């Protein structure tokens, strides 16, 4: 396997570090090790670099530098948005609205809040994985304090109408948060505070390092820190800043923004080619969220009658990295909550694989993977007892 070149179709899990991010990070791993809170010149150097990174992020999203709160990643940013708003507004109201297809860092946080005295409404999605904006508005109550709807789904790539939802929610005086981890780098995000009060980002999904993310928080948003400590990140996120990761994040975000238009077109072309080939060469294939607006890089595919891990292993033996919506680990498989929410049966959800393309993807990769799948699916179907 080692002599075979890797084909990476798992960019929604994580992305490799881009050269721009690596270059930006190196000084902080070497002699620029200062703590941005320190008085001396090394501290000032780090403080200045932190400001540069923060301004770079603010410029991309059309917000002020003070509205950028760096975190350790998307999970922490989502926790901060939900828990922080819940704590800050608990005397105003205790109702939170979210959707059934959110990332677990939102859903499980909401679930824990529901055990702590908050009422949580989890809105369903349609068969395409999209939430109805009217359902969000209908679910609003006088005690609703927060609505959280993701921008793009990590499994299917389906885009939610967050601008429409956000505007309507904000108009009614309720906070709106969107988890944009999977959307950034795929769709243009600017002037985000026109529809959102808070927005979550993660560096490692846009060719930045792991260990950095951000919550964009519009000025004046009631939010309490969820950790106690120093007064870092506008008092919202105590802890000495991970300067290397933050600098890498800012550089990666700038690069993602700069190459967005050309990359979107290129990757959309590759995904179309991939899906067309699968639909043409393999019987009983369906593309999840095919009828929805999707981010250009994601393809969630059901191969009816097979079990996804068996496909993953066959692909892996060929050097191809993909991912599955379910995992058979403890005797009971755990089908994807996203696909189940879209109305797929357990059996269908178990037959789903996710292919997520990225900067390294070529036409040759698309053709190699789709050809490999023809043989793998045929073999597994011949073996299948269904």
């Amino acid at each position: 396997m080692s002599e075979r070149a890797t084909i990476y179709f798992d960019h929604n899990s994580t992305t490799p570090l881009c050269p721009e991010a690596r270059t930006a990070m190196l000084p902080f791993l070497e002699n620029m090790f200062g703590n941005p809170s320190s008085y001396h010149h090394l501290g000032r150097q780090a403080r200045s670099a932190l400001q540069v990174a923060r301004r770079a992020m603010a410029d991309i999203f059309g917000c002020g530098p003070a509205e950028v709160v760096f975190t350790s990643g998307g999970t922490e940013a989502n926790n901060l948005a939900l828990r922080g708003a819940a704590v800050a507004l608990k005397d105003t109201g205790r109702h939170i609205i979210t959707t059934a297809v959110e990332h677990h860092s939102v859903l499980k946080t909401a679930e824990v809040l529901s055990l702590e005295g908050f009422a949580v409404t989890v809105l369903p999605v349609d068969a395409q994985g999209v939430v109805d904006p009217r359902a969000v508005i209908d679910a609003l109550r006088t005690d609703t304090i927060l609505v959280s709807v993701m921008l793009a789904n990590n499994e299917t790539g389906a885009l939610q109408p967050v601008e429409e939802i956000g505007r309507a929610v904000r108009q009614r005086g309720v906070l709106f948060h969107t988890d944009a981890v999977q959307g950034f780098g795929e769709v243009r995000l600017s002037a985000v505070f026109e529809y959102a009060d808070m927005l979550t980002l993660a560096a490692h999904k846009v060719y930045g390092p792991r260990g950095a993310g951000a919550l964009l928080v519009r000025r004046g948003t009631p939010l309490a820190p969820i950790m106690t400590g120093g007064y870092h990140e506008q008092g919202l996120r105590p802890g000495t800043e991970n300067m290397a990761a933050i600098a890498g994040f800012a550089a990666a975000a700038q690069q993602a923004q700069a190459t967005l238009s050309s990359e979107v077109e290129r990757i959309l072309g590759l995904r179309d080619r991939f899906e067309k080939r699968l639909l043409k060469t393999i019987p009983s294939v369906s593309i999840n969220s095919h009828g929805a607006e999707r981010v250009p890089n994601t393809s969630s595919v059901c191969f009816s009658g097979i079990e996804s891990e068996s496909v993953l292993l066959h692909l892996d033996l060929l050097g191809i990295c993909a991912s599955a919506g379910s995992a058979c680990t403890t005797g009971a498989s755990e089908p994807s909550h996203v696909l189940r929410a879209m109305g797929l049966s357990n059996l269908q959800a178990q037959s789903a694989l996710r292919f997520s393309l990225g900067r390294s993807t070529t036409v040759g990769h698309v053709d190699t993977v789709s050809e490999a799948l023809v043989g793998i699916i045929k073999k597994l179907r011949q073996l299948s007892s269904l």
Partner: protein
Amino acid sequence: MKSEKFDDDSLQEPATQRPEGGEESQEEPVIFYNETVIDHFTNPRNVGEIENADGFALVGDPACGDQMKLWIKVVADYIVDVKFKSFGCPGAIATSSMATTLVMGVHLDEAKQLTDDDVVRALDGIPSNKKHCSLMGVGALKAAIRDYEQRSEQQL
């Protein structure tokens, strides 16, 4: 479209506590299969169906991830042919394949003694969180033998 509260079981337990065993820093196993398992997964033995089989079993539930069909042909209390089809993960396919090779040509009394540990041992081990897969092949085999015995009794 109606909204729903947290009452469905699409989510697992809320994360208010560390998972069991967390205190002992249970390491998540690196799921990977050894060469023997990979071999039985990529080239499963005795795949197919037997027409006019003497015993048949259908075990597992595809909605839970695994299902297996197994056919046996019996002559003078010996399993002279065994074939299977399986819907499942690599662990399920490899253990089913190995189970069939272990009972091919074997006396029924001996085949009935086969355990899932025998299958795992013959495969030089499988990842611990895939051990449950090995139960299916053995279960299907025993159910097929029972089916054969019931049919034989009915003929007497």
